[in-house]
């Protein structure tokens, strides 16, 4: 089992940071529980907090989960297969799995849950909880369908929506839910967690190493724990300056960045294209590629250029969302970058 799963806190009391938030969730769970919209960057502990809250609501029963596979039929008679994680008290769905048909799933599934009452009389709560992952990827239609369900069936059903940002959640949903922001842990908090895990695993804990991992992880606790485990798995003996192995895709992107910096020619673009394709075929999201590449390039260039590079990076990232062939936009960014750099070095202002 990975450290991330093995040492995941199970109860609200054992969470190590955001104590104020934990106590709020606790008081909500013991009183009148509203619909929740939990948002924050990835690796901040949204899911962990929700599972702990569920445990607070229902007791140990929520930990016995099974995976159900259900088939839904769309209006155009297409069959959709959909996986649901359930316990007797709650169920957890990721509607964005089925893309544009998420509305069908939301309507059918939620109505079905909402119309059946809690059978178990010894249950602590009369309602069931539905956890919706990646709520910010729901289509507008699906969100509009939620709106009605949330009000109509509120005695039997509570929703917990998980999202990375509230930007794509429509206003009516936002005004019906209690917004809970989970900020990413600070570097110090991550260091504490790493040290705690290290002690539990009887590893030799190095303060300096923990701190480096924490900084490197970009305040993402999950990533920090994975890196922590990787370092210990790869090295017999860790020191404060043991190198941290980056994930393969990140290594490849740094390689791309180096290549771009080394030579500014059209041939180089061709070489880079092969690598970009490689990344895309390994299912690395294009946004992640573009972002990582940008932040790898930034330290290598002169301060005066940075603002421009960010500007074009943001521009092509936007294009990525509008268009549907990522490679074009990634390559366009590379070409743009080479051009910017070249004209800066030659001190000529080309017309853009």
């Amino acid at each position: 089992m990975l450290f991330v799963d093995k040492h995941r806190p199970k109860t609200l009391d054992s969470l190590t940071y955001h104590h104020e938030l934990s106590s709020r969730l606790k008081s909500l769970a013991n009183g009148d529980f509203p619909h929740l919209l939990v948002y924050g960057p990835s690796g901040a502990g949204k899911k962990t907090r929700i599972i702990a809250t569920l445990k607070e609501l229902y007791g140990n029963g929520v930990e016995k989960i099974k995976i159900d596979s259900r088939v839904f039929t769309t209006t155009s008679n297409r069959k959709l297969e959909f996986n649901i994680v359930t316990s007797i008290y709650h169920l957890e769905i990721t509607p964005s799995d089925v893309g544009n048909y998420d509305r069908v799933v939301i309507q059918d599934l939620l109505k079905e849950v909402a119309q059946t009452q809690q059978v178990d009389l010894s249950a602590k709560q009369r309602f069931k909880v539905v956890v919706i992952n990646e709520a910010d990827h729901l289509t507008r239609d699906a969100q509009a369908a939620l709106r009605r369900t949330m009000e109509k069936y509120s005695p039997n059903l509570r929703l917990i929506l998980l999202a990375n940002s509230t930007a794509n959640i429509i206003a009516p949903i936002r005004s019906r839910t209690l917004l809970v922001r989970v900020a990413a842990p600070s570097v110090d908090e991550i260091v504490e967690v790493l040290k705690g895990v290290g002690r539990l695993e009887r590893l030799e804990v190095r303060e300096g190493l923990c701190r480096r991992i924490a900084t490197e992880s970009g305040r993402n606790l999950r990533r920090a724990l994975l890196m922590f485990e990787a370092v210990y798995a790869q090295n017999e003996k860790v020191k404060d300056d043991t190198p941290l192995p980056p994930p393969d895709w990140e290594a490849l992107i740094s390689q791309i960045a180096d290549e771009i910096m080394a030579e500014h020619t059209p041939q180089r673009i061709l070489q880079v294209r092969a690598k970009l394709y490689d990344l895309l075929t390994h299912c690395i999201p294009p946004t992640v590629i573009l972002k990582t590449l940008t932040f790898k390039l930034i330290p290598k260039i002169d301060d005066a250029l940075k603002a421009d590079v960010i500007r074009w990076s943001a521009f092509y990232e936007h294009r990525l969302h509008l268009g549907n062939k990522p490679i074009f936009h990634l390559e366009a960014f590379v070409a743009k970058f080479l051009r910017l750099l070249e004209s800066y070095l030659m001190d000529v202002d080309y017309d853009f």
Partner: protein
Amino acid sequence: MASNFFDLKKRKEAAAASSSSKQKAAPAADRPVPWVEKYRPKTLSDVTAQDHTISVLRRTLQSSNLPHMLFYGPPGTGKTSTILALAKELYGPELVKTRVLELNASDERGISIVREKVKNFAKIAISTASASSASKYPCPPYKIIILDEADSMTQDAQSALRRTMETYSKITRFCLICNYVTRIIDPLASRCSKFRFKPLDEGNARVRLSSIAQSEGVRCQDGVVDMLIKVSDGDLRKAITFLQSAARLHGAVKAKDIGGDDDDMEVDGGSGGEKGGGGEVTVRSIEEIAGVIPDKTIDSLMESMQPRPHGQAVYTPVAKVVQDIVADGWSAAQVLLQLYNRLVFSDMLTGNQKNEIVGIFSEMDKRLVDGADEHLVTLDMSLRVAAVFGHDGS
């Protein structure tokens, strides 16, 4: 025997009494009503701050003749409440069920529904008023169809309504409610008399919010009501929802059984400090619920964007602040909004600079709506605004 008999009767009575009281108590305890619904105005005079509209409606109420109506205005200004209150005053609680049809956006409202449901309801003859309600309420001889959120109806559905409105105008009045009057097709708009609902002014909103807070026994810090008004932009519903969420979070609602002698307790509570469960609602918690970023964070962003001496690039400080903002989970749209409010009213910038900045904001807003990455967008926006700070806009 006799005593037994009486006993039985008594027992029955007791049982009946207890069950009825339980029935009454149970739903109230089990299903807490959102305060928005609980404090919806019951009569026309309860409606806050729409004096002009209310006085016109009141006059039509006296003459018992109602035109077709079109209510428009921003959300949370009392459009739906007004028409519901009006309907209640016209018909009384009994007749409302048979005389009023309310459809809103969550109901299916395609062209077929307009053709069938609306038309059928418009067609049916008016139910006769019972003597009791007729004596108490005006009960004018027409029905009311309320089409809430009418701007989300399709063009086709709207045009299907045109003739229906006229044909049955003797026995049916329509009330359309919408946010954007421009989305209502002209033929419909010209058939209605229009009422504009303006955003609530501060005074009225304050009175309303404090009265709700008082009757729910929510203990607030000074300035909470002001903050509610500020973050809700004249949308009373939003303000009330925020207030309820905050009260729930802090457990700031006093125990219910204090009941009658509430006022005395209030005085005691003020001096005694910690009384009843839970703390009080703070200004910060309202901000947190509304997702408002603390001024300090925006200050530090502004600070980092100021031009550096000796032509140093602003990239490093800006990137650091932006990374923290993103890691703290603040939504980029909110950063955009608050920064915008700061900059547009700032005296430090020239008109030209503001021009450029507003241009940047509009582009960034579009990108966010398209689902672009928040980190990059925020960073790009900050850097470009910083660049505008750098040159004088001449």
